[in-house]
């Protein structure tokens, strides 16, 4: 009997068989893998498994505790819904990439040491890149390229941090890192930057809103869940209670909201709301109390479900209409009412409407801010809630399914497997909202929080109902405009291009000019040394001709003579000169060395 089976390996090795199978068998097999992983998880007991000593270090692939289990559970459950959603896709490569990606994320969650964490971290980055490139458009290939560059940078930061950490502590165990100000904490800083890039914390977030909307319809659904949430997981493990994270998280939550107002692309708007929602979790990690950590874990759980549902809805619209811009959408309720209602369940969940899952997790983080007496954090997170409902809950559905009397384009409901996946995900969102104890039981700490206390429900209802009024009054301002929005990717997309232009044009010209001057100088030396008399005569004549011609035109005659004289002094080919020059330089160097040796005895004492 095997003591423990790594669920990530079920996906990674399971993915290898996908291209071999065909048709119905392949579909059944792909749906079976998450179920096998789920069974594996249900029978798992806490403890440390699969530790392999490698020279002085111990690699640990299975650290099982409540925190890793809750993330593993939601990854596996979500992967089932997402696979169902992607079942109609014919390209095997996409399925394989998705399974490797999930396997990588599960590997990160169970990693008990920094080396195995790093390996799975990179598997995730490369597998997710494939999900973007499979869209096979110019935009997606470029966005994917930028995506992987950012993630490679993040990976290098992480690796640098790990190496520094191992050097200073002598251990590769992945536990809470030391935190403080000063040179002693450089390792922690590097590791944190690596984590923050994957968590999409501004200003290191632009890859997310840049790349996710360019991914394949089904690939984007996978992308929403694993990269950012595994980053939240490692932040909880490594940096709980770091005050910096509170402020970064709060800024993130509002940043995503502000950019969502300006977006014209349906999936890019939703991508900005991933940033916003992950902001709540990062703030929760920063607050670091038991309730806040519970809130961050619970919110990650709920977020994966409702965000997948929202991307499924948006994906269905793009799949059926071929359009993704608000300026080209509208009035689709006539053709896709079912998609609309399923999307709305996701929208109510993300907005934190009571009886939907966002309400039971988001309020936990907001309440923990109140519990830790952080008034500003509380106000800003509440404000982000307003913005979330305003966009995901009102603007997107209004501009996509209504806003025009007649539909802009003919469409129909998406294929059954997509609807079924949305249905299951929507059911889970509502189930957790109505019966939060199911989720609370999985949380890392004991929960002493009643989400449905009257004051919470009433406060949230007022907030959201009034937001609707505000939206309706200002809805004319919220129509999409055919524009794009600048973000911090400007620095590598525009400034980077300008930098390369600067290197290629002025800098290169400067270098060639210097080169030319030096070559001319060398040439003239050689000419001079071959025939000093003739060369100096030519020099004198040339200078005097140039200086005196303006005063006395007769000197122009001399110019003709100069050309003749130059012709006579035939130049030798450059190559030979450079060899001669090289020998001369070497000799000079040795002479210099000799001089120092003679005066000081040794080169440097």
């Amino acid at each position: 009997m095997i003591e423990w089976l790594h669920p990530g390996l079920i996906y990674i090795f399971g993915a290898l068989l996908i291209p071999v199978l065909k048709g119905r068998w392949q579909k059944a097999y792909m749906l079976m893998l998450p179920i096998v992983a789920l069974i594996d998880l249900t029978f798992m007991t806490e403890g440390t498994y699969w530790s392999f000593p490698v020279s002085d270090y111990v690699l640990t692939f299975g650290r099982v505790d409540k925190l890793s289990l809750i993330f593993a559970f939601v990854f596996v459950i979500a992967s089932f819904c997402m696979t169902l959603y992607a079942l109609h896709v014919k390209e095997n490569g996409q399925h394989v990439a998705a399974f490797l990606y999930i396997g990588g994320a599960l590997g990160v969650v169970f990693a008990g040491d920094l080396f195995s964490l790093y390996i799975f971290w990179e598997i995730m980055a490369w597998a997710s890149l494939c999900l973007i490139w499979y869209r096979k458009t110019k935009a997606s290939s470029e966005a994917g390229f930028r995506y992987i560059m950012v993630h490679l940078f993040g990976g290098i930061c992480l690796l640098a941090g790990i190496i520094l950490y191992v050097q200073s502590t002598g251990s590769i165990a992945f536990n809470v890192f030391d935190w403080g100000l000063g040179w002693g904490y450089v390792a922690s800083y590097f590791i944190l930057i690596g984590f923050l890039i994957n968590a999409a914390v501004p200003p290191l977030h632009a890859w997310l809103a840049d790349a996710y909307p360019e991914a394949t319809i089904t690939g984007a659904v996978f992308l929403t869940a694993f990269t950012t949430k595994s980053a939240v997981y490692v932040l909880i493990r490594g940096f709980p209670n770091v005050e910096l994270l509170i402020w970064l998280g709060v800024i993130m939550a509002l940043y995503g909201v502000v950019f969502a107002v300006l977006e014209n692309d349906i999936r890019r708007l939703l991508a900005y709301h991933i940033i916003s929602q992950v902001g709540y979790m990062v703030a929760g990690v920063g607050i670091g109390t038991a309730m806040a950590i519970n809130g961050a874990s619970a919110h990650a759980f709920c977020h994966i479900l409702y965000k997948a549902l929202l991307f499924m809805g948006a994906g269905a619209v793009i799949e059926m209409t071929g359009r993704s811009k608000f300026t080209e959408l509208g009035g689709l309720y006539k053709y896709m009412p079912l998609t609309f209602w399923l999307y709305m369940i996701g929208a109510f969940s993300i907005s934190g409407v009571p009886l939907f899952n966002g309400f039971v997790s988001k309020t936990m983080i907001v309440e923990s801010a109140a519990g830790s007496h952080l008034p500003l954090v509380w106000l800003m997170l509440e404000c982000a809630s307003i913005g979330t409902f305003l966009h995901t809950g009102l603007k997107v559905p209004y501009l996509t399914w209504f806003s025009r009397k007649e539909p802009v384009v003919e469409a129909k409901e998406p294929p059954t497997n997509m609807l079924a996946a949305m249905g299951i995900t929507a059911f889970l969102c509502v189930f957790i909202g109505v019966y939060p104890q199911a989720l609370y039981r999985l949380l890392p700490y004991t929960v002493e929080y009643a989400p449905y206390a009257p004051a919470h429900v009433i406060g949230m209802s007022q907030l959201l109902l009034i937001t609707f009024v505000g939206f309706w009054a200002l809805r004319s301002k919220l129509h999409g405009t055919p524009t794009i929005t600048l973000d911090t990717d400007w620095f590598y997309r525009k400034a980077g291009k300008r930098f390369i232009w600067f290197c290629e044009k002025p800098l290169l010209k400067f270098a060639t000019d210097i080169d030319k001057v030096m070559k001319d100088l060398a040439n003239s030396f050689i000419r001079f040394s071959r025939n000093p008399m003739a060369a100096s005569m030519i020099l004198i004549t040339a200078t005097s001709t140039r200086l005196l011609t303006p005063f006395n035109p007769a000197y122009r005659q001399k110019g003709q003579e100069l050309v003749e004289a130059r012709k006579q002094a035939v130049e030798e080919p450059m190559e030979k000169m450079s060899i001669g020059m090289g020998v001369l330089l070497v000799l000079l160097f040795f002479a210099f060395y000799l001089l120092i040796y003679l005066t000081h005895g040794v080169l440097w004492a």
Partner: protein
Amino acid sequence: MGRRIKQKYLFGILYACIAMSLIAGVHVQFFTHFHADFVWQEIPGFSAIYGFFGCVAIIIISKALGHHWLQKEEDYYD
């Protein structure tokens, strides 16, 4: 049902809900054991006021940022 009438009903329900939530808020605050974490939570209907001004502020500030700085033509990066 016509679009207009539907909208009218919808808004009727909406305003009724807002009124109910405000009344319920006042009830909870003054007639039950109520614990406020911050000073402003003692203002009746604070969430509603904050919600309205927050919503308007988000739209106006973001639009201004976009209009004057962040929004560019779609071929900006090409």
